[in-house]
């Protein structure tokens, strides 16, 4: 405490910048929109990374995203509860799936775990896709309630329609997730996860039940991913099985995290902050046809030249626990 080092300074400056820039560029609404979505994907990337901190590479996080989105959408559609209430509740559906996941994949590691998680997505996806009475099947649900309007400190914030307010909401949730992620790295439990990631045998020799700790990490991770999915559903106002259970949503957080640096506190956020706006704001307008090729090229080059991720550029934190 007390001493402020360069990495904390950089973090504070970054957060401040994220909080202040929309006030300066008031009229650049499309930037608010894209940066808002960036925050949403950063939440997903942070969620993915909390599980990855325990050494488990998941290729199935879209299952949590989709379950969060669908549970929240169904509660909203059938019972007309406010999104404020359906989002935290709906994300619990993702946690339920995480419990089954933890039990079922106890013995799997490495590539096998990745492949199994990829396959596991089919279960919620196909059920949602075919339970016509409850979920309307492949038709999806349209006309979901928007995020509500709240009055905070006398300022009316319309999170549903005002893109700038929406950005601040997403930024706020993202910062909360970042705080959680920070706790997951810089805490006793965080080191437990790291110990499991580095050597499970040695971790067990220290009395750490790696399955239990990994399951805990997954619960947390799935809840966050579920929240991200629920937010997505209410921001878009619609859900569809093929939309929210999508391989792309499993790969995206992985790419963001690895690109940014998956062992660093700011890694996943940094990856999202660079890659998503790069694609949406620059590559797509400038190269409507060839943007994804350039995007692919950026990913390839980064891994070759910055294998530890972009966050390795940040000033290093002090060498202590």
């Amino acid at each position, binding site marked *: 405490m007390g001493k402020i080092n360069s990495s904390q300074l950089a973090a504070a400056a970054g957060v401040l910048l994220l909080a202040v820039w929309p006030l300066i560029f008031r009229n*650049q609404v499309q930037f608010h929109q894209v940066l808002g979505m960036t925050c949403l994907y950063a939440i997903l990337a942070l969620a993915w990374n909390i599980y990855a901190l325990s050494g488990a590479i998941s290729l199935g996080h879209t299952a949590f995203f989709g379950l969060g989105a669908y549970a929240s959408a169904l509660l909203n559609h059938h019972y007309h509860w406010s999104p404020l209430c359906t989002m935290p509740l709906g994300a619990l559906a993702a946690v339920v799936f995480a419990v089954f996941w933890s039990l079922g994949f106890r013995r799997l590691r490495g590539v096998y775990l990745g492949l199994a998680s990829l396959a596991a997505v089919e279960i919620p996806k196909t059920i949602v896709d075919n339970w016509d009475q409850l979920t309307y099947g492949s038709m999806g649900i349209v006309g979901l309630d928007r995020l509500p309007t709240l009055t905070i400190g006398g300022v009316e914030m319309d999170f549903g329609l005002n893109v700038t307010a929406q950005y601040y909401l997403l930024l706020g949730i993202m910062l909360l997730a970042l705080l959680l992620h920070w706790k997951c790295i810089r805490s006793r439990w965080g080191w437990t996860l790291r110990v499991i990631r580095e050597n499970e045998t040695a971790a067990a020799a220290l009395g750490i039940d790696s399955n239990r700790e990994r399951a805990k990490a997954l619960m947390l991770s799935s809840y966050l991913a579920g929240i991200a999915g629920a937010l997505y559903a209410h921001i878009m106002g619609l859900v569809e099985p093929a939309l929210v259970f999508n391989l*792309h949503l499993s790969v995206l957080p992985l790419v963001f995290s690895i690109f940014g640096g998956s062992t660093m506190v700011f890694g996943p956020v940094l990856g999202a902050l660079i890659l998503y706006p790069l694609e949406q704001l620059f590559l797509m307008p400038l190269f409507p046809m060839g943007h994804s090729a350039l995007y692919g090229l950026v990913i390839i080059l980064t891994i070759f030249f910055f294998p530890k991720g972009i966050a390795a550029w940040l000033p290093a934190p002090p060498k202590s626990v």
Partner: protein
Amino acid sequence: MKPNISLAGVWLRKIACLLALFILGTTLPLAAAEKIRLGEIDPLSGHLAKPGQEIHQGILYAVEEANARGGVAGRPVELISRDDQSKPEVAVNQAQDLIFRQKVTGLVGGYVDSLVGPISQQAARNRVPYVASASLQQSIAGNKNPYFFRVSRLEGVVEPLCRFLTQTLKTRRVAILHAATPGSSEFSDSVQAHLRQAGSEVVLEDKFRPGSPDFSVFLLKLPPARVEALISGGFYADNLILVRQLRERPLGLKAFIAPWGVAYQSFIDEVGPASEGLFGACAWDPGITRPGTEKASQAFVAGFRKKFRKEPNTTTMHGYTSARALLAAIEQVLQGAGQLTGEAVSRALAHLDLQLPMERLAFDAHGDPRYYQQVIVQIQKQRLVVVYPPERARGRVDFSLAAR
């Protein structure tokens, strides 16, 4: 270690400079007061790239055609195209970018309802007219949105198809296979409702994920159920496989009908003789034009061929039609010496009545096309022949081909 860090620092700075330049370059208000800017959002890459590109070409053609005539009321038109990658949030991002940064007068394009929906909401919120090229679902047009228009709708497909089934083919036992997408599912539901009303029996209904490599086991279930007609709600690629496997075994089918993917000359070319006798539906084709618009149609085909070195098809025509509608409305506003605002263009769109090759285009209160009606075609001797409705039929249904 040290030199590395400083090297990274230099790079960081360089990249930061580049980025800053980029931001400046792309955010500076583009000075071209004269030009009318149209925004287009379509899936130009990914799974839906084929229809997306086709719509894009149709729109592009309409814009260049307008420019070749000296622009709209003397002002040149610029088309700004964007890819939505078949993801709604990307569509929203790009719509925002087009509306706020590019300051477009109107939006066109859009394939698949989950993408058209969010774009239409952006359009409404920011008072920019949006003419969707290919959108079917009822719910999209349901909520009153004075800025949203579309040139197609589901009823225009389902109605003629079901009437053809019950009146011309007189089938009693029908099977439906559709894709696990919202549009295809709604199509299936709608067809089932229509057919039940007409007294036909839907004896088998199933759906599949787009991209399934095999339908032959599903087809094995048709003969025991004594199915007379198979309706496929699948898309182009699904029908490619389905039709090949359909022809491998005798199934005793009277008809195979697919509204999407079959009524294309390219489909016939890919599938070859196996396509003979199949039924499809389309709104337009180089050989299938609404009576009275043959000349316009031929000019379009000739011009399109020259420009893109390929044949236009019904998807291209949807793109072309939507762009024509938007351009016509803009022209009306400008000729009326009104301000070129979103409200004015929308009002003009609402009162539009155009004679276009694909349809007589006028919108109802929901922004739906009043007269959109597809025709049923049969593939005979490797050509598309209109067989329904009777007033537009160019040939008779060849049952011998169908029952092969």
